[in-house]
Structure formats: C-alpha cells, structure tokens
C-alpha cells in the first residue's frame, strides 16, 4: 500500500484530500479481488496497469487544474522567455557585473573541472578507441585475501580463455622493448606489446589500415613473423605510405611483415604507456627469450564480459577456473596459493596505480573545491549587492502587480544563467588547463604520456557543478532581493542599509578562511619539495648520465649480450670526459629494487636463524664509485667477482647493524634463496624508493651472477654532460650500427621523478592558492569599496566635523581588518585540522609546520592589508563638500 500512496501523492493536494482515502479503499478491494482471481500474477498485472493509468490521470488532473486557473503551460513558457529576456537586458545594462560573476564562477568551476578531467581520463573513462569499453575487465590472479598476486602464465591464460562462459573472450599481453628499423632509416626504440592473437578482437578495435592478427595457435611460430604498428610509428618511420602494409621492417634485428596499422586514438591497455608496435605471442622466443609459453608467469589478462552477466558471477567462475588449474599445476607452492580472481574495470591503469592516483587526486580535488567555494561566495556577494541596488526597480515592478514568486523566479533565472555561463567558461579553462598538464614533461621514460583532455562527461560535470553552485550561492541573494519589505524602498528612496548583514560577513570570512587553507597547503607542498630536493639520499646524482640497454630487444643471445655490455663499458671508460661507469639493475629513486628475504645464522653453533626482509640489486664493477657511495668497510666488487666468486655481497650499513649489531659484518655469511653469500663490503645507506623512507636493508650482488638482458649504464662525467651524451650514444652505435640510438637521461632528472607528486601538488595548489587569494582579496576589496560608497555622506560629515584623514582610514580599515582577522583565525584552525590529510605527501614535513603556516599567513596579511587600505584611503581622500552635496 505504500507504493500506492506514492501514486496518490502525484495528484494535486485538493484532489488527494477529497478522494485519497476512497482511492485507497478501492485499490485495496481491487487488490483482494486480483489476488483471489489471478494470484500474484494478477496482483502484478493490477499494479502495473494501475500505476501507469494513475500517473497519467494525475498528470491530466494537474493540467486540468492549471487550465482551470487560467495559467496554461504556454503561459509558463512565456514567463520563462520573458525572464530570459529580462536577464539578457540586465546583463547588457551592467556588463561589468555580469562579467565579474561569470569570471569568478569560471575560475572556480575551471579548477574543479580540470582536476575532474584528469581523474576522468585516468580512472573513469573506459579505454579510448575500443568498442563498449565498460564491458572490459582486467583479470588478476591474486591470493585469497587479494593482497598479493602474480601474472598469468600462458597455460593459465589458455584455461581462462577456453573455459570461461561468462566472458565473450579473454586476451593476454605483456610489455616488450622493441627496436624497430625501417629500411634506410635509423632504428628507434619503442614500447611494444606482445599480444595473444585475439587481443584486438576482444578489445573491439578496428585496424586503420591492413588487418590485425589472424586467429592462430599462439604457440606456433609463424614462418613470416608479423607486426602491427601504431598510427604514430606509421607516420614517423614509414612516411604514412599506404604500401607500408606488407612491407618488412626489422624488429629486434629480424624482418617482420607489417600487416596492419592501429587507429590513431588507440593506445593499448595501459594508456599512459604509448605502445607503438604489437607482435603476436608466437614471437616470444625472439622478443622475450627469457619467458616461455608454458608456466612462466608474465602475462596480463583481460576479458570482455558477456552481455547480461554480472561481475560477481564472472569473478566466481574465473576464481574457480584459477583454483582448479592451480591445484594441478607444477608451479611453486607460493604461486599455486594465488587461486582467486580479481576483476577490475579496464580503464587504462593497473589497479594499484589507480588507487594511488585516486587518493592523490582527492587532495587536489579538495584544493580545487576550496577555490570553487571562494568563487561562489564571491559571486554570491556580488549578486546580493546587485539585488540591493536593484530594490527600487523590483519594488516598482511589485507595485505594478508582479507577484513575489514572479520576482524570485526572475532573479533565480538571472543567477542560474550567470552560473551556467560561468560553467561554460570553466570548461574552457579546464580545456586550457589540461592542455598545460599534458605538456608537463615527464623525464626518463619517453614512452609515458598522458591524455587528459575533457570529454562530454567533464562538460556535463562542469555544468552540473555550476548549477549546483548557482543554487547554493544564488538562492540566498535572490530571496533577499525580493524580500517583502520592498515597498519601504519605494516610499523613502533610501539607498539601503549601510551595515553589513551577517550573511555578507560570513561569506567574506568564509572566502578568506578558504584561501588561507589553500595557501597553507601550497606552502606545505613547497616545503616538502624543498626537503625532498635537499634530502640526503646517500649518493650523488649530479653529473651522472644513465641509459638502459636492453639486449633482448637487439636480438642478442646471452654470449652476445655479455660481450656487448663488456665492450660498451670499455669504450665509454676510454672517453676522456668520463670519470667512472658501471652497470646496475636498478636506478636509484626511479626503478624499484627487488625484494627478498635473507636468513642469518646466529649463535655459536649456527643453529638459531633470523630472517630479514631486504631489497636487492645486481650492480657491476665501479657502481659505488660512479654514484659516490662511500664504503664504510671492506671492498667494492671487482670484475673477477662476477666469474670466480659470484657468492659475495656488499650490504648497506643499516643491514649490517640489524644483522650483526655487535661485530663487524665483513666475512659473515647469510643465505639468500639456496645460495650462501659472504659479505665483502659495507656501503653507506642510500634511499631507493621514496624520499621519506627509512634506509632499507640493502644487498648488492655482483652483476653476472644472474642472467641479465636489460641493464642500466650509469656514467659519471668529469665536466658538462651535454656533449658527452652524444659521444656515449655514438660509442654504442659504433659497436653495432643496427642498434637504435640509446636515449641518455641525467640521473638528477630521472630521480627527480620521485618528487613528481610533490611537484605537481605544489604547482597545482600554488596556482589554486594564488587564484583563491586574488579572488578573496577582490571580495574583501569590493565589499569595503561598496561599504565606503554607501557611507560617503556619513564619512563626509565626519570629516566636516573635524575627523582627520587618519581617523577615517582607521575607521574603514578597522572594518576590513576585523573580517580579515576572523578569516585568518578560522582559516588557520581549519588548515591545522585538514592538512593532516596531506601527511603521506609531505615527506616528513609536519602538517603544522610553522614556516609554511607562517609564510601563508604573512602573504595573506599583506594582501588583506592592501585590499583594505586602498578603499580606506580613497574614502579618506573624498572631499567632504562633494560628499555631502545632495544627490
């Protein structure tokens, strides 16, 4: 019966009052009859029929009522049209007023929409360039608690692809480094993907030219390997020629036939990674010789949900497939325990990166929201002032018979039109803002780029935000503008009250407080950035160049790789500008080292064993010298270690203290996996992952004791490094001219990536903070100037009665500074409560950092003083005679 009450609620009030109870009685009787006659089906039919007809009846009844009262639907439209006309006229009459409101709202909405645009592109938007992207899911193999996971092996992927009935298809892929050489051109290093043959069809991508891979047995190598290239590579390497289809290009040293070109909007599955070439899984022995097409876990899997299947069912089915497959697989037990499927929407980022980005974006969104509040309050004040100065016009219209509702409606229309225009301005600003964000250069990996421009979703979001802001900030002024005592103004023609009412003061104080919070956040991020820059990372990045050499991508086998690495280092060391050079598997502060556990025998009998988590990296001869990491004791690696004594290690001071707190570590041993390793040296602690970490337990191993195909060459230069980069590149190419030109980067730039969140946050909150401060200052200035203009005569009287200029300045300034003081107190209080949320991004700077809060306050006070003193001085400078002259 509750549902039926809803239907009754659709009718006009009088109708409900007259017949509501009777309608309920009739329906109750009908329900009983329907239940007797047709069971629950009869009841359902009755409900369906009744709700449709009742809705129509209610609509007709309401329309009849309106017609009965003589104001028809068309009259309503006429009113709207006349409101819009009045709005347009009002805007043309006061262009500066309209422009100020629109500008303020544009800034506020623009800030929010820019951040939303980035969130939208990274998190919400389905993959660009694919068909029905919201049906695509990434499929991860995780432990039952979803904490840990592993990539899929080819066999597991095949099982999911063949058995899952809840999917329309599952595809697998992995990233590969490729070097691509078109005939008669220099080779290029590109990010590539090795994909199952159904990769494109599961994504629903159509080739721009040629075709994609044919359905084939992924494990059987083609006699004639095929490659699909991106539209970008097609343009830059093959001149965008149609005959490119069917031509051969060298991929990692072997000719591949170009069979198709991907459409230009398509960026692969992880959108920040610009994939330029796709090769089928069957090329694995060539492009990823370290993997296999049996049990090695190295593939990412995604699938397309069958229409009408919900995600829980698909997850249950895939979990069951993974579990039954794991039970019989020959994998290590640790991996076999990963028997649960996790499904995530495929929106262009791995799930963990997405989570991190979302929480970071929330911080930025908070800052943008503050700007929107400031802008809205600003606009609200402008509207209120305008409404007061229009009271005479409104009272005339009221006297001529316009109802109060009609006036409110017109004022609301005006407000919402202004806010909607502001929303459009905001979209424009967001478009410019995201274009600026996309151009922020990302050092290091050149394959990374972002595509965050606004789409329809952002436009709708911006308009919705601006209209909501319009309702929140515009309704108050509209209601007050059309308040009942309007006739008073018509009668005595007063200019209006000179006292600010409390909503006006609250708006001002709110604006100022929000701008203080923003400034404090910006100052904290600048402090964090500063701390990050000057942080002691334990090594010296200045003057170090790095390049990553992936011999797998060159098509080299192990022996060729070893020879290549040896020759490159010899030739580089022979350059006069080079002080030191070494290989490493990690780049400090740019690439995460591997994690492992070591076991240490303690006690005299070596029985008691302690397990310690450590980070490991394989480094070559000269590593500590190149990065200038001092050795506390023992020795560094020498070339002979790689071949004759592979089971030696250099450990970090922190580990030495943790493992052997009482004795020297040199000569001690520990177990790593199934190897017993002897400590030969202790190096100073360094920071590897993030700037706020505590020095990790670190184990350096000699490089050749593990098989390596991709190594980073670090080179310390004696002098300026720019010419050296070119010399280094040509040394590499002199060894094998077919190799792509290596990309050299400075370690300082690359390790600066670790500060990227702080840099972006400092930049964004800085821009927003300045914008917010300017808006708030304009608000303060405007309200004082307005108050002064209303009090001109009073101030003139005071001057005539002997008040000095200084007294008048003080009188006006006191008014402004009182508001500013309230703003700063409330703002600082809010800042102290909220900056805690920034904790993880502040690199150890206290959220209550005195320097940051102090700097924000000083800037704020300076601006507030300026915004106060200018109108105060102008008030004092007014000639009392002019001021007192009657209007």
């Amino acid at each position: 019966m509750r549902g039926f009450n809803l239907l009754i609620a659709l009718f006009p009030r009088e109708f409900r009052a007259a017949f509501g109870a009777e309608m309920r009685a009739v329906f109750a009787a009908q329900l009983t009859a329907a239940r007797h006659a047709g069971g629950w089906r009869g009841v359902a039919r009755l409900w369906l029929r009744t709700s449709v007809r009742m809705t129509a009846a209610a609509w007709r009844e309401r329309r009849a009522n309106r017609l009965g009262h003589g104001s028809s639907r068309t009259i309503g439209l006429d009113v709207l049209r006349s409101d819009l006309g009045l709005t347009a006229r009002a805007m043309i009459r006061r262009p500066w007023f309209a422009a100020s409101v629109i500008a303020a709202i544009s800034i506020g909405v623009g800030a929010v929409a820019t951040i939303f645009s980035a969130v939208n592109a990274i998190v919400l938007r389905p993959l660009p360039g694919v068909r029905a992207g919201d049906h695509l899911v990434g499929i991860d193999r995780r432990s039952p608690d979803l904490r840990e996971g592993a990539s899929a092996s080819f066999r597991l992927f095949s099982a999911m692809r063949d058995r899952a009935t809840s999917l329309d298809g599952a595809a697998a892929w992995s990233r590969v480094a490729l070097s691509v050489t078109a005939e008669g051109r220099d080779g290029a290093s590109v990010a590539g993907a090795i994909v199952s043959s159904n990769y494109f069809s599961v994504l629903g991508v159509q080739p721009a030219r040629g075709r994609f891979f044919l359905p084939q047995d992924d494990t059987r190598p083609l006699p004639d390997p095929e490659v699909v290239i991106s539209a970008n590579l097609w343009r830059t390497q093959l001149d965008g020629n149609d005959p490119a289809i069917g031509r051969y290009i060298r991929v990692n040293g072997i000719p591949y036939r170009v069979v198709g070109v991907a459409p230009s909007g398509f960026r692969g599955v992880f959108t920040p990674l610009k994939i330029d070439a796709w090769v089928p899984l069957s090329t694995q022995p060539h492009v990823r010789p370290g993997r296999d097409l049996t049990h090695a876990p190295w593939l990412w899997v995604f699938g397309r949900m069958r229409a009408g299947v919900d995600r829980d069912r698909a997850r249950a089915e895939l979990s069951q497939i993974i579990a039954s497959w794991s039970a019989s697989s020959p994998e290590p037990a640790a991996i076999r325990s990963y028997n649960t499927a996790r499904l995530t929407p495929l929106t262009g980022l791995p799930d963990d990166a997405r989570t991190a980005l979302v929480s970071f974006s929330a911080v930025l969104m908070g800052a943008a929201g503050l700007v929107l509040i400031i802008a809205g309050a600003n606009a609200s004040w402008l509207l209120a002032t305008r409404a007061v100065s229009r009271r005479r016009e409104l009272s005339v219209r009221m006297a001529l018979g316009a109802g109060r509702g009609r006036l409110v409606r017109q004022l609301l229309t005006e407000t919402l039109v202004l806010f909607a225009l502001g929303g459009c301005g905001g979209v424009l600003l967001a478009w410019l803002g995201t274009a600026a964000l996309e151009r922020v250069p990302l050092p290091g990996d050149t394959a990374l780029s972002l595509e965050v421009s606004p789409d329809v979703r952002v436009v709708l979001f911006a308009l919705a935000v601006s209209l909501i802001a319009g309702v929140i900030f515009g309704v108050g002024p509209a209601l007050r503008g059309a308040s009942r005592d309007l006739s008073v103004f018509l009668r005595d023609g007063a200019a209006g009250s000179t006292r600010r009412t409390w909503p006006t003061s609250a708006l001002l104080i709110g604006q100022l407080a929000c701008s203080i919070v923003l400034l404090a956040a910006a100052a904290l991020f600048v402090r964090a950035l500063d701390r990050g820059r000057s942080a002691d990372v334990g090594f010296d990045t200045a003057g170090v160049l790095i390049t990553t050499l992936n011999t797998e991508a060159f098509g080299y086998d192990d022996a060729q790789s070893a020879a290549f690495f040896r020759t490159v280092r010899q030739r580089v060391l022979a350059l006069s500008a080079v002080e030191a050079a070494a290989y490493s598997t990690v780049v400090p502060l740019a690439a995460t080292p591997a994690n492992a556990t070591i076991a240490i025998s303690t006690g005299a009998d070596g029985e008691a064993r302690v397990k310690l988590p450590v980070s490991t990296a394989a480094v070559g001869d000269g590593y500590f010298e190149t990065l200038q990491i001092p050795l506390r004791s023992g020795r560094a690696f020498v070339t002979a270690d790689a071949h004759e004594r592979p089971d030696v290690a250099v450990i970090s001071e922190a580990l030495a203290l943790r493992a052997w707190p009482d004795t020297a570590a040199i000569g001690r041993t520990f177990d790593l996996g199934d190897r017993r390793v002897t400590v030969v040296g202790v190096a100073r602690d360094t920071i590897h992952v993030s700037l706020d970490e505590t020095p990790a337990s670190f184990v350096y191993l000699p490089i050749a004791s593990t098989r390596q195909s991709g190594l980073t060459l670090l080179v310390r230069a004696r002098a300026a490094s720019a010419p050296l980069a070119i010399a280094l590149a040509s040394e590499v190419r002199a060894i094998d001219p077919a190799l792509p030109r290596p990309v050299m980067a400075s370690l300082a730039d690359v390790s600066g990536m670790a500060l990227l969140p702080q840099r972006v946050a400092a930049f964004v909150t800085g821009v927003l903070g300045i914008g917010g401060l300017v808006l708030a200052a304009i608000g303060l200035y405007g309200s004082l100037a307005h108050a002064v203009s209303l009090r001109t005569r009073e101030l003139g009287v005071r001057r005539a009665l002997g008040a000095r200029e200084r007294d008048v300045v003080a009188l006006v300034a006191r008014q402004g500074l009182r508001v500013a003081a309230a703003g700063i107190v409330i703002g600082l209080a809010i800042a102290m409560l909220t900056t805690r949320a920034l904790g993880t991004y502040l690199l150890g700077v206290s959220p209550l950092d005195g320097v940051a809060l102090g700097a924000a306050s000083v800037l704020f006070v300076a601006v507030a003083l300026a915004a106060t003193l200018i109108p105060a001085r102008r008030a004092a400078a007014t000639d009392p005679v002019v001021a007192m002259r009657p209007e």
Partner: protein
Amino acid sequence: MPTTVRDHLPLKPVDFEVLLALSTEDRHGYGLVQAVATHTDGLITLDPGNLYRVIKRLLADGLVAASDHRDTSDDAGERRRYYRLTTIGGRVLAAEIERLRSVVRDPATRSAVRRWT
C-alpha cells in the same frame, strides 16, 4: 456551468457507464468499478485515479451526489462513501439513452450495420 440537460450531451462512455451503474442503486467506489466492468464485459476497468476524476467531474456538474446510504452489513461501510444519481443526472442519463436509441433507429445506421456485419 451547463444548465440544461442538452448541454451535458453527448456523455463520455465512462460517464455514461457510471451514471448507468448508479441508476439502479447507490454504490460506493469499488461497487462502481465492479458494476462498470460487469456491464461492459470488462471493456472498461477503472483504476482509482480515473474513477475519482470521473466522480469529481460528475459531482461538479451536479449529475451525481454523495448518498446517505450506509450498508450496515459491510464492515468497511462506515468508511465508504456512497454516490447516488441526482435528478438532473437521471434526466441526462435518460436523454443520452434516448439519443443513442435514435442513433440505432436511424435507417442509415441500420444499413451500415448490415453492410459491415
């Protein structure tokens, strides 16, 4: 406000059926729904909303009125309002039936019926 019987003609089919149902006895809302459904062989089944829109209109036109009738055998009788045909309502109903009868008697109507059945 129509004042003569003629001003009410022709009646809408639903109005006609409701008046017809009230011509035999006073009825409450659900009684009307049942009577109309029976009489039209299920062609017209009224939902509460449209039923009371019709009743509201007929009340306003003075064709029906609330009745004093209370059916004491019915538990819910106290809460149910009954409606009765007013004098003018009865005249309008009779006039409408007469109008329909003359339509049926018309030779043109008869030939049309012969042709199409």
